């Protein structure tokens, strides 16, 4: 449940913009102002409200949000002290949106620096037409979003057959009807209560036959990008763990899927494409962390993945950084073996996920090396090719999933 500050005593709203946060006092004013401008400019005929759903931040996030000057009324919600997690914040947003009778809900990250009022239009407008879930489409630097590019996008595309380029983009739109579906789900695992929420929302929408579109934001996402080798933190475990949990839950849906289908696009005609700011990646550190994984997890890997893949992995280990390559097809099949091991609960799930991290570093190292001479468009082509590799591995997934108990 939540703690609430609602100075305008708002009882109903057609359209809600939610901003989940934890200690974002320095940045939350920007998305709050832009959200208000977007709501006034494009949805002046609707009752709107902006809701900050917070984790009881100690840095003054609540004050920064409530003190931001906006034409649109604001509500502050917080989890009780000690309860953290983006998923818990969004669950509070779902509840509050239901109570307000909202038709459409938009979520934008609190650390967004590049948001414009048009983002609100593009994420919300399809919800008043035929769509129930809107994912963002924006240009990102080729080294930004390595979990998206190497895991979330190719797996979701090959497993569920829907091409949603940013399935964990953090900025979404969804209908009030879908918010109700989210609230009625029983699988609020701890990872969903935290960073697993984004992929859980996208996957749940797909598996409930909700009409999905991707909305072009027109500007790159500028937030706090991170070097993937510097600090992976709990995000990796929660996102990938949620992907695997959802595969277990939704097997009856995805076992029927063959290949993939494009997803509708909304929001063209926004002028020249802006280039995203550069992201620095320390390739040597990724390589070293991959190599260190052999010392820690070699024996476990031998039990988790098939003998053939384990042999190929041993070959990759012998490659120097200059010639390093972790092929996409090997990566796809290793991820499948990990998903199957996770399903079968060999060892324990948390340990399985931890042992995947050095392999992810290895694949990311190879990916960054391959992308180095490429333009953003060439990088996109490479990511599309990788998705093709994952789609062609689907028979391997089906065989392993149903043959291995």
């Amino acid at each position, binding site marked *: 449940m939540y703690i609430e500050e609602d100075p305008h005593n708002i009882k109903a709203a057609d359209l809600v913009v939610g901003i989940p946060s934890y200690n974002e006092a320095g940045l939350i004013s920007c998305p709050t102002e832009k959200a208000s401008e977007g709501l006034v400019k494009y949805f002046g005929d609707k009752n709107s409200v902006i809701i900050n759903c917070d984790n009881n931040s100690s840095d003054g996030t609540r004050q920064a949000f409530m003190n931001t000057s906006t034409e649109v009324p604001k509500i502050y919600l917080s989890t009780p002290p000690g309860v953290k997690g983006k998923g818990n914040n969004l669950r509070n947003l779902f509840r509050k949106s239901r109570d307000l009778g909202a038709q459409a809900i938009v979520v934008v990250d609190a650390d967004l620096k590049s948001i414009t009022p048009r983002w609100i239009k593009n994420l919300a407008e399809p919800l008043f037409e035929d769509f129930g879930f809107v994912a963002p489409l924006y240009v990102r630097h080729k080294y930004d979003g390595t979990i998206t590019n190497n895991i979330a996008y190719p797996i979701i595309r090959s497993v569920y057959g829907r091409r949603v380029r940013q399935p964990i983009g953090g900025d979404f739109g969804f209908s009030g009807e879908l918010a109700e579906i989210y609230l*009625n789900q029983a699988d609020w695992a701890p990872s969903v209560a935290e960073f697993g929420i984004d992929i859980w929302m996208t996957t749940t929408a797909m598996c409930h036959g909700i009409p999905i579109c991707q909305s072009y934001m027109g500007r790159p996402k500028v937030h706090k990008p991170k070097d993937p080798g510097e600090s992976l933190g709990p995000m990796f475990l929660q996102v990938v763990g949620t992907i695997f949990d959802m595969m277990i839950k939704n097997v*009856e849906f995805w076992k*029927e*899927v063959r290949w993939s*289908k494009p997803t*509708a*696009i909304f929001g063209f005609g926004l002028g020249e494409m802006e280039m995203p700011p550069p992201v620095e990646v320390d390739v040597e550190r990724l390589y070293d962390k991959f190599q260190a994984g052999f010392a820690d997890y070699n024996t476990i890997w031998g039990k988790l993945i098939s003998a053939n893949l384990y042999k190929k992995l041993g070959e990759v280990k012998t490659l120097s950084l200059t010639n390093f390559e972790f092929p996409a097809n090997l990566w796809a099949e290793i991820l499948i073996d990990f998903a199957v091991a996770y399903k079968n609960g060999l060892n324990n799930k948390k340990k399985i996920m931890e042992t995947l991290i050095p392999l992810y570093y290895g694949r990311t190292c190879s990916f960054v090396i391959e992308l180095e001479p490429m333009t953003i468009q060439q990088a996109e082509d490479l990511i599309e090719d990788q998705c093709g590799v994952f789609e062609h591995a689907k028979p391997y997934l089906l065989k392993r999933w149903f043959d291995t108990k």
Partner: protein
Amino acid sequence: MKKILIVDDEEVIRMLYAEELEDEGYKVITSGTGHRLIEIIQEERPDLVVLDIKMAEHNGLDLLQDIRKEFYNIPVILCSAYSTFKGDLKSIAADYYVVKSADLSELKQKIKMALEGHVPTHPPENEA
């Protein structure tokens, strides 16, 4: 028999594709222009459209948007002599993008994949 509509302003391409795809067991119809494309699709109900991008009178990417507005689920394969249009976000709305080549094996493979493609539109019966 699956029906494929080829839209390309080069007659030689239309003839080549038609011959090769008919040999693969498809029924092929062709159009040399994007004019009346939506009406043709309504009348002929093809199972798949192979669409050129750079045509004398029409831009295939704009035609793709028109198709998607009316027939969201029909598979469309963009087929162009140029790979640069891949960079246009509008191309994402296509099922596949194939760069033209004298060897049609990639186009045939993508046609097969697009026709085989299946994504359920409703949750399984036992789901809420």
